[in-house]
């Protein structure tokens, strides 16, 4: 009884929740950074995710036309560089003019960018879904055999292993970057008071660029991981993730990248676990309310602890 509970719970609810959470977490890092440093909610963030997965697909396709079979993760490297450039270009031409305007301007501008990027992708690649990876991912046999020796069989496909590992690696690099380099500190200063940062000799524009580089890279990673998991790409995939990612960023505390990670994991787990038959046979709340789970957590968080789990900013 207990064992079968664990088996089901871990394999069908916990691990999927964790994977989803990792994707949310990576996306939320970019959101929390732009929110904290540039002080606006970037609605175009999901589109950068989406574009990077399209670019990855395109790179893999082009390579294969030269007879080169690339793993999508390899294809993601040039794609994430392109996404970073995309983020920088968007910032230069569409956000920078509003740097000294009220926040709302840049929020609206980012909403406009969301439309522009998405329709560009739709015009170029069409609105149809594109297969990213074909077929069905079966659980990793080695882990399955190995863990079943201990009566704790774990079913986890390779794609999920790479998503989990990838997220951990990115997180570690990121940790180093923010806590042990000057850039991390500069970001905090700019986020606090850009004018003062400027007259303290900090080149604010460079810090802003660094923010986009980091945020763009994390978005690219999140986009590719999402495509790896769902195995297809389509033009609204970024927007679908946007609100839960906002929720994750707020949950963790704005301007707190590690908060965003924690928030992402919590939202991901909560969404998946909401369908678990905690009482009786059916899900506790109808899966029709699934996205409500993330929003409810977020709204409750905003009300009872607006600074988030990790004491982020409250403007």
């Amino acid at each position, binding site marked *: 009884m207990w064992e079968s509970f664990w088996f089901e719970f871990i394999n069908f609810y916990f691990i999927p929740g964790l994977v989803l959470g990792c994707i949310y977490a990576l996306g939320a890092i970019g959101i929390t950074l732009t929110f904290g440093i540039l002080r606006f909610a970037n609605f175009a963030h999901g589109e950068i995710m989406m574009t990077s997965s399209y670019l990855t697909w395109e790179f893999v396709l082009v390579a294969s036309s030269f007879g080169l079979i690339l793993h999508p993760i390899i294809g993601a490297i040039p794609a994430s560089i392109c996404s970073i450039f995309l983020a920088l270009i968007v910032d230069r031409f569409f956000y920078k003019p509003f740097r000294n305007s009220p926040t709302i301007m840049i929020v609206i501008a980012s909403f406009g960018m969301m439309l522009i990027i998405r329709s560009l992708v739709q015009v170029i690649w069409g609105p149809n879904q594109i297969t990213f990876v074909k077929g069905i991912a079966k659980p990793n046999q080695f882990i399955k055999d190995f863990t079943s020796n201990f009566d704790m069989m774990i079913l986890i496909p390779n794609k999920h292993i790479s998503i989990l590992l990838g997220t951990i690696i990115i997180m570690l690099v990121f940790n180093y970057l923010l806590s042990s380099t000057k850039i991390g500190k500069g970001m905090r200063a700019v986020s606090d008071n850009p*004018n003062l940062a400027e007259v303290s000799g900090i080149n604010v524009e460079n810090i802003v660029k660094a923010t986009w580089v980091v945020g763009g890279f994390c978005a690219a990673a999140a986009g590719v991981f999402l495509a790896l998991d769902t195995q297809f790409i389509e033009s609204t995939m970024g927007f679908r993730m946007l609100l839960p990612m906002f929720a994750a960023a707020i949950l963790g505390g704005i301007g707190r990248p590690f908060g965003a990670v924690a928030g992402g994991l919590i939202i991901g787990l909560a969404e998946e676990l909401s369908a678990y038959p905690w009482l009786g046979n059916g899900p506790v709340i109808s899966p029709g309310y699934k996205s409500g789970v993330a929003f409810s957590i977020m709204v409750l968080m905003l009300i009872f602890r607006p600074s988030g789990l990790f004491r982020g900013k409250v403007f």
Partner: protein
Amino acid sequence: MNFDTILSINKLVAGYGETEILHKISISVNKNEIVSIIGPNGAGKSTILKAILGTLNIKSGEIFLKKTKINGVKPSDVVKKGVGYVPQTDNVFVSLSVHENLEMGAWTIENNLNDKFEELYNLFPDLKDKKKQLAGQLSGGQRQMLAMAKALILDAKVLLLDEPTAGLSPKYRLEIFDTIQRINKSGLPILMVEQNAKQALQISHRGYVLVDGSNRYTGTGAELSSDPEVARMFLGSRG
């Protein structure tokens, strides 16, 4: 141009947007000098400092740091060229700790600064106790000290102070003026804006009185303090 001039402003015209605040202002700071700018509220004193830093559009006139023209240079580059600046308001990073604020002051410097930090903490013992506290939780006066300390870390060529003693207790006010003199003796020229005009003029080599965005009086600190007209109109002397 005087060979020893560190900072010189020449017939500067500047303002915010359309409105012109400064009308052909000329000011200079020579080697080893403390120079004060005094004047009524809204005369344009802070505006001058902002113009030097480059956060303002300059319509005409020139600003030289030593021999390089610095109008139109980005603020962060002006700081890199050696201009230290303490704004009048919003002069600390409120969500950073006291120590991190000091580190931000040292942004443009690469080498290890622990000694320098120690020195500053000795100068402002209040801050030492509050190293880890967020600057936003400091009292008004403590903030002012932090802002000063932050600017002093840089080995600047010239230091611009906008009302460094506003809100400080008499004891600290004296200490700040002392400090200013001490720093100055070590070879750093200082341009400050002050409303504690009497005390400021006492320690200044030269002073400018600014009214409505134009130079009104110029002279040595002693001259200005003793000028009855200046005293009555700007120093708050009674009678």
